[in-house]
């Protein structure tokens, strides 16, 4: 949820200068931000006794997520695929930026695989932290309300 709220805020701000981040494209960036978490399919699999952590790990590694971004972009119309891919990839970058802040005991993010197995983590925020998520969601709602009010004002001015 924090990833989605963060993307909404970032895209809303970027769309003020670059409209490509706004409208229906915002949800593409949100999807890009959720793609690394396909990895979490290991959780329901664990319930049926399958340990798929290492099998699915590549989804939560940038090079793997980029390949998935490429595959997903191929589902879109020709001529829009490059832009869709870049929007997915931007969402992916926001995901890893937020995840890098989390506390990890197991090592952290393998950001440079397959070039390096080095792990990175800033160890600042607990994964089950509610305050950070609540602030981001509240911020997203606030940004949405401000945008709605701004659009309404803009429209009434145009109409006059």
């Amino acid at each position, binding site marked *: 949820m924090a990833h*989605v709220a963060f993307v909404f805020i970032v895209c809303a701000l970027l769309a003020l200068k670059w409209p490509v981040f706004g409208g229906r494209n915002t949800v593409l960036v949100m999807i890009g931000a959720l793609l690394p978490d396909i990895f979490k399919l290991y959780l329901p699999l*664990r319930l049926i006794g399958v340990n798929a952590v290492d099998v699915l*790990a590549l989804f939560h590694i940038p090079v793997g997520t980029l*390949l998935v971004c490429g*595959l997903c972009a191929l589902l879109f119309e020709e001529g829009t695929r490059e832009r869709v891919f870049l929007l997915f990839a931007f969402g992916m970058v926001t995901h890893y930026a937020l995840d890098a802040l989390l506390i990890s005991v197991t090592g952290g993010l393998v950001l440079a695989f397959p070039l390096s197995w080095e792990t990175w983590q800033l160890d600042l925020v607990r994964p089950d932290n509610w305050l950070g998520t609540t602030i981001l969601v509240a911020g997203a709602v606030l940004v949405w309300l401000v945008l709605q009010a701004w659009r309404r004002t803009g429209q009434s001015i145009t109409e006059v």
Partner: protein
Amino acid sequence: MRRGLLAAILICAFIVLAAYYYTDVTYHLDAPRESEVSADYNAYVGRNVTISGEVISTGAGSFALKGTHENDTYTVVSAAEVHPGDDVTVLGTLGPGYQLHAIKMYTSSRVLSALVYIRSFVALIFVVVLFFASWRFDWHGWIIKPRKPSSQEQDGA
């Protein structure tokens, strides 16, 4: 045709990288995990390992941790306050007899861990609804298209 070829290349690249990760990850871990420890316990005695699991009982200066994957029970030597049912990940030095001297630990209550997954699921539903509000899947051409053309396309740009 070109689209199918590109998809096949991307899928093959993913499978190759996933296989490389799966086969080699064990050799690159700073601290081996429960699955590696269970396979050859004595080889890891005296080394730092990472064990995740659920607290099943607590005592003075230690608690019992049931591993998530192999269901082995470890006695974790730590003064940290934990409660039965908590999800714990411990980085510690493995001793004989399934004893683990904690160096670094991450604890989360079962309720908080479950709520993290619930809020993720809610976010997923939200994004799916938002996506299909502005995009549609054309089954005929296996293509995702915008529901409404953009203002630029309407203008013929």
